[in-house]
């Protein structure tokens, strides 16, 4: 582990100003330590050598010591007072960067486990940086400010003592690194054993209700004892070695202070030194080693935070695909052509979709069909420019007859501005139902007639009537308070409210009863009549029947053999797979708390 990661300073502005403040406090602290040592040495030395003070001089000396104490108190207060804020701000900055980057990396990265990693980081992982900022970093900066400044001052007071310390201070990191290196392999082996044994014990304890339900709880008790004892021994063996470097640090630090004291004492006895200088040196000496000792003490506490920030920086280093720059052509007139588009399913050894070719002429109503896991939702992600095809391409033929463009060259925001999309799991923010509907409605919010019309078209009007406070009903994170079907109708209403030339609807009637379904189907037909291009992801026959043409999406194994789609684990496509792995617990029913609550601070 690097003592200080330059990436942290580069990525976090809050970290930079905090480090400047801390370094300045370190300098002030050094001055205070030196002044205090000299003042106290003069006081004690003056009395002890029989010089004595007049009351005025004595009062001045005490006043000066008092002032130094006030300064030291202020430094300690300021340091702690702003450390927590800096930590919170830095964590917030990193969290924002990670989120923006994950979003830019798109659904494929998320489905490959990126979403789960990012979710861990932004919920809890990065919070471990607090200990790094409030404990470790200040001491580290003291090592580079207080320790050298005091060494230089010590050189002016007594150069022989300064040389002893100048030699022994570097010994501390050298010995710590040496011991660390020598024990590295042993520690890693021990740590692996320890972690493994610990996980096995906890696995049995957390699985106890399941064992009990199957009548198997008695057998493992002996195993829990055996594993626990083995875990205890492995842990003890680990710490015995792990504490060695800390012991070296403490030993060198205190022994050096003792050596300085003895050397000073012997020279005083020989009359080659002044008592006041001697007293000052033995007060300064421990302060030189103190930051080093504190760094050692807080090293392990900060390790989690450093590991989390490393994970964050690794994630930030994953390159995002370059976005196109050309403005999108007018989609009301353009034709979209899929040419043999294949996308590798993440980590599963096959392609979904495979070899997908079709044309979306303007104003057409087209349905994508195929079994679960065939890649329908991924095909939509490709059309949206969120996922790049593994092979093949998507061409856009503008209506004005100019040359066709590859979708990857087109500037995404100008493309998205012309698309209305209702995914299977719509994004809903905490707030009122009306706010959630208007969020994407950029004209006058008072256009209630349009809102009512869109709600009716989506079959959402009956939902609003059934809600306790109608349009003003508040919903929670992820749409908590609405059923899955209701959330989907809200998303449909959003689509109907927008006037976009290309409309993409992912299973819009999946959770609807027959009457509402007919209402929605009629609205979809009317979209077609308005000349909008509509792409449906359709499972149900009733929905497919609306389309002028159907495109069958299929997945294949990479070796070319076609898979029997058994409604396998990839059901729902890349988007929902990412959600499922992201929250660890896909909430398909709307009955329980959302993933956000599951992953947030547990009670």
């Amino acid at each position, binding site marked *: 582990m690097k003592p200080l990661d330059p990436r942290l300073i580069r990525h976090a502005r809050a970290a930079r100003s905090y480090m400047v403040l801390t370094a300045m406090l370190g300098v002030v602290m050094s001055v205070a330590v030196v002044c205090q040592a000299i003042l*106290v040495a003069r006081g004690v030395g003056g*009395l*002890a050598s029989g010089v004595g003070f007049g009351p005025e001089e004595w009062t001045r000396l*005490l006043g000066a*010591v*008092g002032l130094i*104490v006030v300064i030291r108190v202020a430094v*300690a*207060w300021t340091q*702690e007072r702003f450390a927590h*804020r800096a930590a919170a701000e830095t964590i*917030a900055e990193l969290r924002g960067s990670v*989120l923006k980057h*994950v*979003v830019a990396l798109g659904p494929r990265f*998320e489905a490959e*486990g990126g*979403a*789960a990693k990012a979710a861990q980081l932004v*919920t809890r992982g990065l919070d471990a940086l607090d200990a790094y900022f409030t404990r470790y970093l200040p001491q580290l900066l003291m090592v580079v400010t207080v320790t050298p400044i005091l060494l230089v001052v010590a050189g002016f007071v007594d150069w022989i003592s300064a040389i002893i310390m100048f030699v022994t201070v570097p010994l501390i990191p050298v010995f710590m690194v040496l011991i660390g290196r020598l024990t590295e392999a042993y520690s890693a082996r021990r740590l692996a054993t320890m972690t493994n044994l610990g996980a096995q*014990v906890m696995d049995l*304890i*957390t*699985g*106890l*209700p*399941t064992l009990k339900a*199957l009548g*198997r709880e008695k057998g*493992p*008790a002996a195993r829990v*004892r055996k594993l626990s004892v083995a875990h205890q021994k492995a842990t*003890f063996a680990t*710490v015995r070695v792990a504490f060695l470097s*800390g*012991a070296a640090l403490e030993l060198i*630090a*205190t*022994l050096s202070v*003792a050596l300085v*004291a*003895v050397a000073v*004492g012997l020279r005083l006895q020989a009359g080659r030194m002044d008592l006041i200088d001697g007293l000052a040196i033995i007060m300064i000496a421990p302060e030189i080693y103190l930051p080093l000792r504190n760094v050692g003490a807080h090293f392990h506490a900060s390790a989690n935070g450093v590991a989390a920030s490393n994970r964050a920086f690794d994630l930030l280093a994953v390159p995002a695909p370059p976005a196109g720059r050309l403005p999108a052509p007018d989609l009301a007139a353009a034709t979209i052509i899929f040419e043999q588009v294949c996308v590798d399913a993440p980590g599963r050894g096959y392609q979904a979709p495979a070899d997908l070719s079709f044309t979306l002429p303007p104003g057409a109503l087209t349905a994508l069909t195929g079994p679960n896991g065939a890649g329908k939702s991924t095909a939509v992600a490709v059309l949206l420019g969120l996922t790049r095809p593994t092979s093949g391409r998507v061409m856009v033929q503008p209506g004005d007859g100019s040359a066709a463009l590859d979708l990857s060259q087109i500037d995404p925001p100008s493309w*998205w501005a012309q698309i209305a999309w209702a995914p299977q*799991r*719509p994004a809903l923010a*905490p707030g009122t139902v009306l706010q959630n509907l208007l*969020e*994407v409605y950029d004209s006058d919010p008072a256009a209630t007639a349009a809102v009512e019309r869109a709600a009716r078209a989506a079959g959402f009007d009956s939902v609003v009537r059934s809600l306790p406070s109608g349009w003003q009903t508040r919903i929670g*994170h992820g749409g908590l308070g609405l059923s899955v079907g209701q959330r989907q109708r809200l998303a449909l209403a959003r689509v109907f409210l927008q006037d976009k030339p290309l409309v993409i609807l992912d299973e819009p009637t999946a959770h609807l009863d027959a009457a509402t379904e007919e209402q929605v189907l009629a609205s979809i037909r009317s979209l077609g009549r308005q000349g909008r291009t509509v792409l449906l992801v359709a499972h149900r026959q009733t929905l497919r029947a609306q389309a002028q043409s159907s495109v069958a999406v299929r997945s294949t194994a990479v070796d070319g053999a076609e898979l029997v789609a*058994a*409604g*396998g*684990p990839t059901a729902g496509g890349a988007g929902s797979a990412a959600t499922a792995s992201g929250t660890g*617990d896909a909430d398909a029913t709307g009955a*329980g708390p959302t993933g*956000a609550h599951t*992953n*947030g601070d*547990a009670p």
Partner: protein
Amino acid sequence: MSRRAESEASPVAAAPPVRRPLRRAVALTGLKLGQLLAAVFFGALTQAASVALAGTSAWLIVRASQMPPVLSLQVAVVGVRAFGITRGVSRYIERLTAHRVALSGMTNLRVRLYERMASGSGAGAAAFKRGDVLARVGADIDDVGDLVVRGIIPALVAAVLMVGSSVAVGAFLPTAGIAVFACLALVAIGGPLATFRAARLAETAATQARADVSASALGIIENASELRVGGQLDHALADLAGHEKRLVAATDAVAKPSALAACLTEVGTGLALIVNLILTAVAWQAGAISATELAVIVLMPLAAFESVAGLSTAAAQVYKSRAAAARIVALAEAGHAADAAVPAAAEPSGAAEPSGAAPTGTLRAAGLSAGWQAGRPVVLGVDLELAPGHGIGLVGRSGAGKTTLLATLAGLIPPLAGDVAVGGAPLAGLSPKARAAGVAFIAEDAHIFATTVLENLRVANGRLEAADAAAVLERVGLGRWLAGLPQGLDTLLTAGSDSISGGERRRLLLARALVSPAQHILLDEPAEHLDPEAGRRLTAELLAAARAAGRGLLVVSHQEEALAGADRVYRLVDGRLVDGGLTDGAGQ
């Protein structure tokens, strides 16, 4: 999910506060007093060496400046060096002994927890009800271990040091000794108090802000694509920034008492220094102390503050461990109470020698009331019969008590009234093995063990052959998943949710139900996390398989359409079981 909703809805969800959780948790660790005192001894020795080093150095310097013969300084020279070495070495021994105490305590805690939960029916119930508590029991045990190493031992060491160094100073000048004690006490009491205040503030103010930040950040990850396409990303990020701002403000509020705790050490040290300068100057003028004593009195106490400065950290650890200790004590003592209430008769190894033979025949519940706590039934007066070869469906809203009823029917929590029997044999009188051979319960959140795929199925049937396991996995739609695993059935599944998805997990649990040789199987929410179509198909398949094998199957769902193939469907309404058709959508 519905389990969670259920426990939230049930009135017993808020466990009664555990009194004196720290003391009781420490008692559970079976901490050896001798080992603890050894750790405190070495801790005190470390700090004492540090104080003695400062004192001896001061004496040596002042005495040397009076230019006595070198020989008269020899003792001090040796002393200074010896204290320097002692401090480093005894610190290492202190850390080792402290960890030895804590580690053996944690082992005892783990084993006792497991044994109590495995034997006591009450603890079993507690474990069932509070799966969330069980999931974090590992971290909780670590927190109790940290309580010993970072809380109890440093506090005792600081107490010894406070008294010791005050007495040492007082031996030279009693007034100075009292002043040093007062300053040390200021730090030792004020620091922890301020830390407690900070911890309480963090809990009340920052927790909500933190939860909002997490929820909003997760929302962005989950809906990344839609937010981008809909142009809402900036809006969502601004929303997050607002929550972050509130979190920073809350952190800022917490930082104030923290900063007070941090600067108190400097206040104490500074006060001791100034007061001692004045006291020694007066005493010196009065001729009450010598020059060397003067230096020792002023300089020695400065080293004593290091040990009391650590008390703020110790206080933070105590605060953190208290909640963990309360959860552990609640888990362990629930079992203890149950064991005390139900003497050996209910124990499987008791004199009654319950039959180990697997009971066969109809599962019958009569006048059954179920609930997690006596006097608070969630389900009332249930009469139910499940004959071998029959399939029963049970629907009800989330929180209606479906899981509670199932756990009671499986004999995992004792009925509050009425009884459950298989083939006429009451479940309460059966050994765990026989009971599970009669009724097996596959909970919705059943554990996937960190072992191989095959072993995870063998949990339900120890005699399962690999070929049969593969066939069953194929049947539940995991054929392709199995084929993709690097070592097939021998692939290790890691405990976390990252190695298998929610849907795969669900199917694996269904496979467990299929391989179980039990006479009756109670299955909680088999269709959860699957798309409706697959859920319907799999449930139908399970019902057909049970019928063919002559086993009884009770399936709980809140999606009625999944239960089309059942012989009978019951509905749980307001704690009562009623006949329910497939008509009026109460599951919505």
